[in-house]
């Protein structure tokens, strides 16, 4: 039979009798007790032993209990350990200060060992419940993040599609989504969307979107028709208030024709083999909101090794610096020009590095896709 490791309690008090009393009472109930007689040693023991709970005296030689708890709460390794203060001081202000610093409870001296035991049990139970809730939520988010990432194709999955990609979700349930798919031998589709919000619901929607793309982006439909069909379904399935911006590149390497359909998304950048980069401005309605939505569309003749860049607004917008994407997109052109010599796979990463290496902090999910004809 498997036995659980006993719960470890650290007791810090300069009063030897209190230490012994608590040690004897709690160890009799199956707890492992570590005792220290001053604040500094207590703090070191907390970092070293990572106890499940700490009983901490306030008035001690050297570091006081208040100083010790401040150190513990400022360190990620010890910040979640529940601390109960043991104190001879029963004044309200002192208690309030302790709670403010992160204590979960107080035991006023003199105490009865049964009271200590009861409070230790209570706070261990609360701590276990909170930790398992947090762990459960983190596990679910990890699953979502894994599922989301496994849906995003990489260049090695589709060698004929000739693209490079940078994808980074700010939170585990990201709002950016992209897909790249083969429509026929010479035709590939490149789709990038940005959902409003970053919650779990959003990330489940990305799975639906992937299925919708597979159903609707076929040789039978024009790129604009595909986008309209996506819109019709999304209106029905998206939760209230949710929408997405998207852009869709339909590239026929046989006819050297590239069609861009834009649904409220920042403009894609065209970097011709010979010539300056420019924005393909095709304004359109957002996806998933209007039944009669109209999408911006443009078809251009392209040449081999021309490059196209699609990106999410996280690359060019900054709420902090009050930059919206019409201006941010213009600022992107010189950055993209500089990546001309970068190989296809590295180009998106170079752009991100160049933008966020300055003084701009990442505020949103960031996706950059570079497509080469």
């Amino acid at each position, binding site marked *: 039979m498997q036995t659980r490791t006993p719960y470890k309690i650290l007791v810090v008090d300069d*009063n*030897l*009798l209190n230490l*012994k*009393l608590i040690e*004897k009472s709690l160890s009799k109930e199956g707890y492992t007790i570590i005792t220290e007689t001053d604040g500094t040693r207590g703090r070191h023991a907390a970092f070293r032993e990572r106890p499940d709970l700490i009983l901490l005296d306030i008035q001690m030689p050297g570091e006081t209990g208040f100083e010790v708890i401040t150190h513990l709460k400022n360190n990620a390794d010890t910040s979640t350990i529940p601390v109960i203060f043991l104190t001879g001081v029963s004044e309200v202000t002192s208690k309030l200060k302790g709670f403010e610093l992160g204590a979960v409870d107080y035991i006023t*001296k*003199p105490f009865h*060992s049964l009271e200590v035991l009861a409070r230790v049990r209570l706070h261990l139970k609360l701590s276990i419940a909170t930790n398992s809730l947090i762990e459960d939520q983190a596990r679910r988010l990890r699953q979502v993040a894994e599922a989301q990432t496994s849906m995003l194709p990489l260049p090695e999955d589709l060698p004929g599609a000739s693209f490079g990609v940078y994808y980074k979700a700010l939170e585990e349930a990201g709002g950016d989504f992209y897909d790249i798919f083969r429509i026929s031998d010479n035709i590939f589709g490149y789709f990038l969307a940005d959902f409003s919000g970053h919650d779990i619901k959003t990330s489940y929607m990305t799975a639906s979107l992937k299925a919708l793309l597979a159903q609707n982006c076929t040789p039978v439909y024009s790129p604009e028709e595909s986008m309209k069909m996506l819109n019709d379904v999304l209106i029905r399935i998206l939760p209230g208030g949710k929408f997405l911006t998207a852009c869709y590149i339909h590239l026929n390497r046989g006819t050297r024709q590239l069609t861009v359909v834009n649904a409220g998304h920042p403009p894609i950048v065209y970097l011709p083999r010979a010539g300056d980069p420019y924005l393909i401005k095709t304004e359109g309605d957002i996806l998933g909101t209007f039944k009669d939505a109209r999408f911006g569309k443009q078809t251009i003749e392209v040449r081999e090794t021309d490059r196209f860049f699609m990106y999410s607004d996280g690359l060019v917008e900054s709420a902090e610096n009050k930059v919206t994407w019409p201006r941010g997109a213009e600022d992107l052109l010189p950055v993209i020009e500089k990546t001309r010599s970068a190989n296809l796979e590295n180009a998106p990463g170079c752009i991100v590095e160049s933008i966020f290496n300055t003084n701009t902090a990442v505020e949103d999910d960031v996706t950059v896709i570079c497509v080469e004809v």
Partner: protein
Amino acid sequence: MDIKTIAAYLQLEEEEAGELVELFISTTLSDMNKIRDAVRFNDFENAAGAAHSIKGAASSMGLDRISSLAGQAETLAKEEDFDQMEEMLGRLKREIASLSRRTEAGN
């Protein structure tokens, strides 16, 4: 108060309670020496602190009479009145001796 009563109060085995009583007696004697030194130097604050410490420890052990005497000693120190302190220390000493005899007899 004998060791059986103390063990029952602390919810411990008699042997464990005995260890705590020993520790209690030695720390209390040391605190009483602190009070004596403090009286000699008219150090009311340290005297009150040591008396407070005995009061708390005795209360934790369920030794109410000792706790009450130590409480009175603390009050005397806070009122800066050392005239009756020697008498109070004498009473405390007798209580400690009595505790020591009874708990040893119980073992």
